[in-house]
């Protein structure tokens, strides 16, 4: 085997046979044969080898090449291409795994031996390369059974993890689909109950009309609490957040000043990261009642599933404030981290693709 390739000749991108250049002929495709890694253009390869095996046209190379063996390079550098081919071949023969060895030391020695041999195959002189090649073949002959076994085990392991991965992906997909169905079912349910409410109103039924009254009450109470809270907790006014609050619904952090950027926290560690104003936000004065809560409070599925009625009550209050639109003015002036204009343009981006209805997920 001649000293392989001529990287410069390749980078020059000139076919050594017909002398076409990439520069003048941008469509030219180069191929090589791993027998000797000498490259030439596809036209020449076809012309020279279509009628059967022939000698490599590179000066001094006397390898006999077949058309079938030619391929285009994956790497720009044919030296790399060749090394990868060699390593792949070595890896197929030396496919022992750690479990095949008594000790880690033995395994490491084995890896070192394989690496040394690979190095000779890649970089050695003709003589040493021949030696390494002979060693490789000897090992292959001697360990044929082991090699086959490891190859099979490898394939099986691959197959198992492939199947597992596919199942995992399916599961992810399934979860997404169910979350979507969940949202759709809820939307339908909401429409239905709204219609029912309207029906009942029309019929003058009282059962449902009780609910709006409760809501109003919640609103009032909540409003009072909220005002009290701001007055009694001056800390809130100064503990802003880095980039600003979320939108519309988050009344409690509205209109707060931006936190002056990090005078590095020298004090004791604050697990809440300087944002704990919530406990004083809504005081739930027990006895809070809501028809939905009464209906399900003792339902086994809610109880065992861990459903939290306290969370529901808190949220009902919170949404009641949001509904009243308290402090909207404040927010306009001070703005949260996401400026008005930014928010508007974001909305525009969404609107350009999404039907507004779709935002109504749950």
């Amino acid at each position, binding site marked *: 085997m001649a000293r392989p390739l001529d990287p410069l000749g390749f980078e020059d991108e000139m076919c050594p046979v017909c002398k076409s250049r990439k520069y003048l002929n941008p469509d030219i495709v180069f191929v090589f044969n791993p027998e000797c890694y000498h490259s030439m253009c596809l036209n020449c390869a076809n012309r020279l080898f279509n009628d059967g095996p022939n000698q490599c046209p590179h000066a001094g190379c006397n390898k006999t090449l077949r058309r079938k063996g030619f391929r285009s390079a994956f790497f720009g550098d044919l030296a790399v291409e060749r090394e990868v081919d060699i390593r792949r071949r070595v890896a197929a023969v030396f496919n022992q795994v750690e479990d095949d060895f008594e000790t880690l030391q033995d395994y490491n020695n084995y890896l070192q031996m394989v690496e040394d041999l690979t190095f000779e195959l890649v970089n050695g002189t003709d003589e040493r390369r021949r030696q390494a090649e002979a060693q490789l073949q000897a090992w292959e002959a001697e360990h044929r059974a082991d090699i086959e076994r490891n190859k099979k085990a490898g394939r099986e392991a691959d197959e198992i993890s492939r199947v597992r991965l596919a199942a995992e992906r399916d599961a992810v997909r399934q979860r997404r689909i169910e979350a979507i169905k969940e949202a759709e079912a809820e939307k339908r349910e909401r429409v239905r109950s709204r219609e029912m409410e309207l029906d009942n109103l029309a019929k003058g039924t009282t059962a449902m009309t009780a609910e709006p009254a409760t809501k109003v009450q919640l609103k009032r109470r909540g409003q009072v609490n909220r005002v009290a809270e701001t007055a009694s907790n001056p800390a809130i006014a100064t503990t802003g957040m880095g*980039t600003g609050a979320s939108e519309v619904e988050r009344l409690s952090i509205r209109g707060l000043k931006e936190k002056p950027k990090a005078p590095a926290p020298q004090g004791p560690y604050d697990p809440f990261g300087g944002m704990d104003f919530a406990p004083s936000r809504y005081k739930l004065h027990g006895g809070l009642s809501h028809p939905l809560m009464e209906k399900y409070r003792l339902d086994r599925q809610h109880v065992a599933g861990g459903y939290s009625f306290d969370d529901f009550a808190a949220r009902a209050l919170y949404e009641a404030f949001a509904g009243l639109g308290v402090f909207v003015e404040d927010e306009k002036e001070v703005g949260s981290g996401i400026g008005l204009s930014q928010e508007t343009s974001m909305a525009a981006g969404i609107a350009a693709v*999404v039907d507004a209805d779709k935002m109504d997920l749950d």
Partner: protein
Amino acid sequence: MANSPLVARPTDALQPPKSLPPSSGGTPSGGLPRSARGQQIAALARPTMDLMEQMNEDEKNKYIKGKKLGEGTYANVYLGHSRLDSSTQVAIKKIKVQKEYQDGIAPDAIREMKYLQKLRGHANIIILHSVFSSKDQNLNLVLEYLPLGDLEMLIRDVDHVRYGAADIKAWMGMLTRAIWWCHDNYVLHRDIKPNNLLIAADGEVKLADFGLARSFADPGVRMTANVITRWYRPPELLFGARHYSGAVDIWSVGLVFAELIIRAPYLPGNSEVEQIALICREIGTPTEENWPGVTQLKEYTVPSDVVPVAGKDKYMGRFGAVGSDGVDLLTKTLVLDPRRRITAREMLEHRWWKADPKPTPKHDLPKKTAGAEEKLAADLKRRNGMVEDDDVRGSKVARKLDFGTAR
């Protein structure tokens, strides 16, 4: 609430007409015949729509898209930077068009957008900078760029990444604050796991991937039980509960905590049945005594040999590295009965945070080593026998590392 949080108050004037994409066909509408309605909308919406398109165009032009960072099931993620200031880097998540949906827009992309917008402003939630649509109606989310990988990479790279109790405390603090913020805003995340916890350049951990998030449900409203990746899924969901709370996320947080300590998934079940068996074996068998009502859950089945609930002693053996207070917190996140499981707020009030050692300042936290990602990719491939797609992480690396696999 009347306003969706995304198309929020200040933009009311810009609200798109409800039946925007023509392909959506039969948007339910009032009694107007279709043609009349169309005209009406056209008349009303014309100037608005041009404005919307213009704004979208402006938004899109603010960013220049660069190389691909990664690929998920629903999106390709690209590095990008601001046109005005090339030092401002962002991640652009381009949602793949999905044929299944009428308008090609995946509902989970909308979900992600909606909740990221709602939760904006917390240091431990990934920032959504902007949203725009590109040609062929592709939705692009412009996200904060988080260059230091995710917690899973750190946990798995045992050869190069060393960390200790103070680091775990810092990471757990950030994760717990993130989930507290979600719950305080009445949002369930429903997919907490180490690889959804991304790491910013300054070491801050950010919760990402809100594709399964939802608002807390009203009483009586059924939620799907099929959420959260199996290893992090709480027993109530494995038993098919349809009315649950933030406690589902807390269980996941507990398992991330455990995994940070032992540097391997704590309960890696290969199936749901096995997952339940693992929970019973490691944590204890759910019974009416320790969890009133549990036997009424639709899919309640447990192995017949009942294991008593593990005491703190049992956990000390395996998780003692975070100290007695840390183990106490861990056990409270892994309480079987969701109603007695600790809440995010209570977690932050726990004494562990104030105990020694102090959490490591974020800038000093261990980071993934250069090449950790490549190594991980190689390991994965070795395990999975997969060749990565050409453009995933730079073809040369992928191919070079893959000598064993036949071409």
